[in-house]
């Protein structure tokens, strides 16, 4: 009996059976996943830069160890995700090459600058909050290695958001200047965070296929709405104002209404014209280039040690 590969693949997905690296999969599924996972991995790696900016200037040791641990987690998350991407047939060097050449994208939020300490609070609260909304459903994504990586990521991510919110809370309860700093950070990070969910659903042409393959579980607009709904109460506890005059509860919808998003800004940042695109890419590329001699030395050392062991074996 001739079994249609594509049909039995889809049946597995419909039955919530995970796809593993050596299973048959449509080429388009593999390519779409590679793009999605590598983009996510790159975002974790580039995402370390805006925060690294404040590690040495953290206001006290408690804040410094927390921020260091958070940035270290992000390196780890990048590594889990690169490994998952490699199971789809691309090498690590190829993945990095796409980041360095600008061919691969990363989350546009990291192209905004971190101007004050309060930005560490706003990033943890809003940027990580938005990331968690996106990531939790991915723990059930149809591709096994990706789902397993996401379970690990999500477990670690919730401390990131809580540490950020705690920073905002401390500033909000502090002096007038500190409260103003927190409000300023919220003003600058709110809209870029709302944009993190991507284009509107009617402008997201690949979503339907991704939903069918279960590599996307909820639509961009649904997740964005959920994020806005929970953020309003969180801002109230802080005594801060979300910078949107049209934000109001809509009884009929059971959700908050909000202003139209500035998609021109969104597209500009994606196109490489955000405030820090060039600076971020330059930092990543120079770290890679300046580390080359270290990587080479490690290989040379490993080869030398291996030879020594071989010689000993022969002598014995």
């Amino acid at each position, binding site marked *: 009996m001739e079994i249609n590969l594509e049909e039995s693949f889809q049946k597995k997905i419909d039955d919530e059976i995970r796809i*593993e690296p*050596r*299973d*048959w999969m449509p080429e388009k599924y593999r390519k779409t996943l590679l793009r999605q996972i590598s983009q996510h991995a790159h975002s974790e790696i580039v995402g370390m830069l805006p925060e690294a900016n404040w590690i040495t200037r953290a206001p006290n040791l408690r804040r410094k160890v927390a921020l260091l*641990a958070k940035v*270290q*987690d992000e390196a*780890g998350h990048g*590594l*889990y995700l690169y*490994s998952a991407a*490699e199971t789809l047939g691309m*090498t*690590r*060097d190829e993945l990095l090459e796409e980041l360095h050449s600008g061919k691969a994208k990363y989350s546009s939020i990291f192209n905004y600058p971190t101007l004050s300490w309060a930005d560490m609070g706003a990033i943890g609260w809003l940027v990580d909050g938005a990331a968690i909304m996106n990531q939790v459903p991915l723990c059930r994504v149809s591709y096994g290695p990706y789902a*397993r*990586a996401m379970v*690990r990521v999500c477990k*670690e991510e919730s401390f990131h958001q809580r540490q950020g919110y705690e920073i905002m809370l401390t500033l909000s309860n502090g002096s007038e200047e500190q409260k103003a700093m927190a409000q300023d950070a919220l003003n600058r990070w709110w809209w870029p965070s709302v944009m993190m969910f991507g284009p509107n659903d009617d402008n997201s042409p690949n979503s339907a296929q991704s939903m069918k393959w279960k590599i996307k579980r909820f639509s961009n607009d649904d997740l964005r709405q959920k994020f806005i709904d929970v953020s309003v109460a969180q801002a109230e506890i802080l005594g801060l104002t979300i910078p949107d005059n049209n934000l109001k509860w809509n009884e009929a919808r059971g959700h908050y209404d909000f202003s139209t998003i500035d998609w021109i800004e969104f597209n500009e940042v994606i196109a490489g014209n955000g405030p820090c695109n060039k600076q971020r890419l330059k930092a990543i590329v120079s770290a890679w280039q300046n580390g*080359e001699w270290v*990587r*080479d030395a*490690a*290989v040379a*050392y*490993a080869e030398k*040690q*291996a030879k020594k062991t071989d010689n000993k074996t022969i002598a014995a």
Partner: protein
Amino acid sequence: MNQKEWPLWEVFIRAKQGLNHKHVGSLHAADVTMAIANARDVYTRRLEGISIWVVESKHLHASEPSDQEALFDPAEDKIYRHPTFYNLPIELKHM
């Protein structure tokens, strides 16, 4: 310019004494010392384990997904391998 990528390693972690090592993921490292050091940093930041195994991925061999039926289906009809297959009197205790 040397474009040599560090080899890939599979990482296994023993969560606590008495449990077996379980596969948790993979990473790149130049040699075994670095692989264990990296595995510690990447996979055990929150008390996930007390012992690490690493093995170079090229030394790992797997069964073919296409052999799944041939390898595993025959076990399905061998119900006599399970204790409930055997009819014994209800009065019988401790067996």
